[in-house]
């Protein structure tokens, strides 16, 4: 039997039985059952993906499973890459769930919401495995609905959850509609709805049809991926969902938007015009910059991580755009490198974002707050969580020797490549893209220094942080697994090289991307080399060496109070907070962020010149959301209000509407 089929079958069976078992399970055992089932589904999915990226392809047609179209599954290396990604994330999150839901009301308490978790993972596995338009759309919608249920898990606790759910529901359904329109138009034009049939006809489509399909699909997929300006759901949903769900959504589900773009743009439509990819590149650049700037000034830990997701998706889209442009210019080798960079960054982001969201969940669970201004001092009280979060932050900041660095290095190599015949637009676009990546990386580093430095180090700034306790073992084990995956991807990214070459070859028959064996990542066409292993060994080895030498030769350290300018003991209120840390950056990017600040000065009763209290308030609204979505929402609201007049509560009137509609349809049919 085909290993992919076996593994996928096991995954779906486990998901079903896990969901069913969770419903009657006693509340104490629910999380363990669901967690184990989710982890199992994840492991099976990852196994299927692993088999597929090593070259096993699998196709199946199950005509009886669904009426009309049936279910068509097809797993190729590209699908395998995303199966591996989703499966890996789900396995970690499954283990994490066992402890996370354990006590204190964090995470969904309701059984229904618990039971949905494995189904959600199965839906995410079904998306890349789908082999036809109808199956794909079915899986996509299943994924959207189950994730919505999970986002709403804590809706009883706070009204913000309900708002987030509303945004998410509206945007995900709008996105679904555009994808639906795009793909059905594509299937109609190609004369068949299986991906194989579309692929065969894809190159012969008229440029207008192909462009329209690409735009429609891009709108839906980019919104699912959280690309700016289609992002407003993301910071809300990621922040308000229970953390294990945030991890699944941010690390895995968002990537399926990327998968959709790759599948439709490169595979089904077979490349396309240059303006597609320049548009995608612009989208990516805006997402990366806007995402990281918002993350840099955010003080809500999970909102910050959510905006960082937008940023990373932006970088991935930039990579895809570079791949499309280079492929159009006939530079298949560089296109392959860009595609590899995008896919590798997707995997890397999945790794570190799982770790970071799980870490954020642990912090939230122990301290009861996700406000960075009220955290701090966790490195003493939660040393293991702090260490693991540090690994994630290092990777997310794209610093060597983290895994984010490797994929950004690859991306830069693809962007830095210059071809004499590339044309004017590319000569202009490439340096701009490099500058965007660089600024994103720079601000990203500042952002993660802020998170780590103000969230975990020094003294606790609030009561929650002061009484924090370390997380249960299963959560630490899960985060450890994610950290290990990050470390693996960071130090020996070469293991992913054959899979990436296979995918690049499948999408456009490029030459070999990576030259030679060994531990270095050596680009065949470009001539650049990076050896993450040596960087890691060098930094860690030398640092340990210096520390040991210092300890052996120097005198022992002594603790003393820090310099307090001679003015009494230092208190936690004197520390820099996340807000103050980000203030210079906020000032520099004042024109982009447009913060709202007001200062209230309350004078004393005796004299206007004696100040009794000063209140300072700063809000950083999402400008794109306010300017782009505000008018749309207002218009929709107005239409809704106008529509209310149609419904006055009279049953006769409703029945009359129905009759009128029926008659109209029949008349239309007769005239036709």
């Amino acid at each position: 039997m085909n290993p992919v089929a076996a593994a996928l079958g096991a995954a779906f069976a486990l998901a079903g039985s896990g969901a069913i078992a969770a419903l009657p399970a006693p509340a104490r055992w629910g999380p363990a059952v669901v967690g184990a089932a989710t982890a199992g589904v994840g492991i099976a999915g990852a196994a299927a993906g692993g088999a597929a990226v090593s070259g096993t392809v699998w196709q199946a047609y199950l005509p009886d499973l669904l009426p009309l179209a049936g279910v068509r599954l097809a797993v190729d290396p590209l699908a395998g890459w995303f199966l591996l990604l989703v499966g890996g994330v789900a396995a970690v999150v499954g283990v994490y769930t066992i402890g996370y839901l354990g006590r204190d009301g964090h995470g969904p308490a309701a059984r229904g919401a618990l039971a949905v978790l494995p189904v959600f993972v199965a839906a995410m596995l079904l998306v890349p495995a789908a082999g036809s338009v109808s199956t794909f759309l079915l899986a996509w919608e299943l994924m959207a609905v189950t994730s919505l249920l999970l986002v709403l898990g804590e809706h009883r606790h706070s009204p913000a959850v309900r708002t987030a759910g509303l945004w998410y529901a509206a945007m995900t359904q709008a996105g679904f509609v555009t994808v639906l329109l795009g793909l059905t138009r594509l299937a109609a034009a190609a004369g068949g709805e299986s991906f194989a049939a579309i692929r065969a006809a894809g190159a012969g489509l008229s440029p207008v049809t192909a462009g329209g399909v690409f735009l429609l699909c891009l709108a839906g997929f980019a919104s699912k991926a959280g690309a700016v300006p289609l992002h407003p759901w993301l910071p809300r949903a990621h922040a308000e969902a229970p953390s294990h769900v945030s991890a699944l959504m941010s690390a895995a589900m968002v990537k399926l938007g990327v998968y959709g773009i790759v599948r439709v743009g490169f595979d089904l439509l077979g490349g396309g015009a240059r303006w597609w990819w320049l548009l995608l590149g612009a989208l990516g650049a805006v997402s990366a910059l806007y995402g990281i700037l918002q993350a840099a000034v955010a003080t809500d830990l999970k909102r910050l991580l959510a905006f960082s997701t937008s940023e990373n998706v932006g970088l991935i889209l930039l990579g895809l755009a570079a791949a499309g442009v280079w492929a159009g210019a006939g530079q298949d080798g560089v296109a392959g490198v860009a595609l590899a960079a995008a896919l590798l960054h997707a995997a890397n982001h999945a790794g570190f974002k799982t770790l970071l969201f799980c870490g954020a969940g642990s912090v939230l669970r122990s301290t009861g707050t996700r406000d960075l201004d009220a955290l701090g001092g966790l490195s003493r009280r939660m040393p293991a969580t702090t260490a693991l979060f540090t690994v994630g932050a290092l990777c997310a900041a794209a610093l060597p020797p983290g895994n984010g660095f490797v994929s950004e290095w690859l991306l830069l190599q693809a962007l830095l490549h210059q071809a004499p015949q590339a044309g004017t637009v590319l000569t202009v676009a490439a340096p701009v893209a490099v500058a965007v990546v660089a600024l994103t990386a720079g601000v990203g580093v500042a952002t993660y220094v802020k998170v780590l430095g103000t969230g975990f180090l020094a003294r606790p700034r609030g009561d929650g942080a002061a009484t924090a306790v370390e997380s249960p073992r299963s959560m630490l084990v899960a985060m450890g697994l994610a950290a290990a995956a990050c470390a693996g991807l960071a130090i020996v990214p070469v293991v992913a090289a054959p899979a990436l070459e296979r995918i690049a070859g499948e999408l456009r028959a490029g030459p070999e991307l990576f030259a030679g064996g060994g531990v270095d990542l050596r680009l065949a066409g470009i001539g650049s080399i990076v050896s993450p292993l040596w960087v890691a060994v060098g930094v860690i080895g030398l640092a340990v060496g210096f520390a040991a030498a210092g300890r052996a030769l120097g005198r022992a350290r002594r603790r003393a109070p820090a310099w307090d300018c001679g003015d009494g003991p230092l208190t936690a209120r004197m520390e820099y907070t996340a807000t103050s840390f980000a203030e210079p950056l906020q000032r520099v990017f004042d024109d982009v962020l447009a913060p709202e600040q007001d200062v209230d000065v309350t004078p004393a009763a005796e004299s206007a010149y004696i100040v009794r209290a000063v209140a300072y308030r700063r809000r950083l609204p999402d400008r794109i959301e306010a300017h782009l979505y505000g008018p749309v929402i207002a218009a929709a609201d107005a239409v809704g209000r106008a529509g209310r007049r149609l419904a006055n509560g009279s049953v006769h009137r409703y029945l009359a509407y129905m009759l009128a509609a029926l008659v109209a349809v029949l008349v239309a049919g007769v005239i036709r």
Partner: protein
Amino acid sequence: MTDQLLDLACGLLLLTAVGVLWRRELSALITLLTVQGAALTCIAVLLAVEHRHAETLFVAAVVGILKIGVLPWLLRRVLARIPEARETAPLVNIAASMLAAAALTLLAYTAARPLVDLAPSPTARAAPVGFAVVLIGFFLAATRRRAVSQIVGVLLVDNGIAAVAFLATGGVPLVVELGVSADLLLAVLVLQVLTTRLRAVFGGTDLDDLRELHD
């Protein structure tokens, strides 16, 4: 060798344009403008030598006298009479101006491509530099408050046009160049009078004050 010198002069032309946008001191602006005039003269001389063209050499001499000598001297005289030495609050802040300059340069490079393809001589491929200087000059004139900055902006535009003309055609008809330069000289003289009058009336040369004349 000539090619390398030409490249260097073009680089200097662009660099001084960006520098004018970067600095706030008005005296530094004039110095940079002088350097830019020198670079422009250099381009003209190099082209004249390369084409062995006496008329172009004469144009170069005129350009040199005007741009290195007369115009900076006039501007310094204006500067000596007004109290403001710095561009304190431009309409667009300096950092954003720099980014705008970058964008304008990229735009110039893209837009000038067809022109370069039209006359694929080794000198013509540097023509985008001239376009960039023109755009930066307009930007400067549009976003600065001080009259001197605005004159400098207009002069940048002229330098840019001259550079494009030199580079794209390998030399400009004498009459055209003289006509343009005479116009400019006139413009500077008018502005000089204007700034003096402005100062007499308002005590400063912030051109936004002119709006009050409307009321």
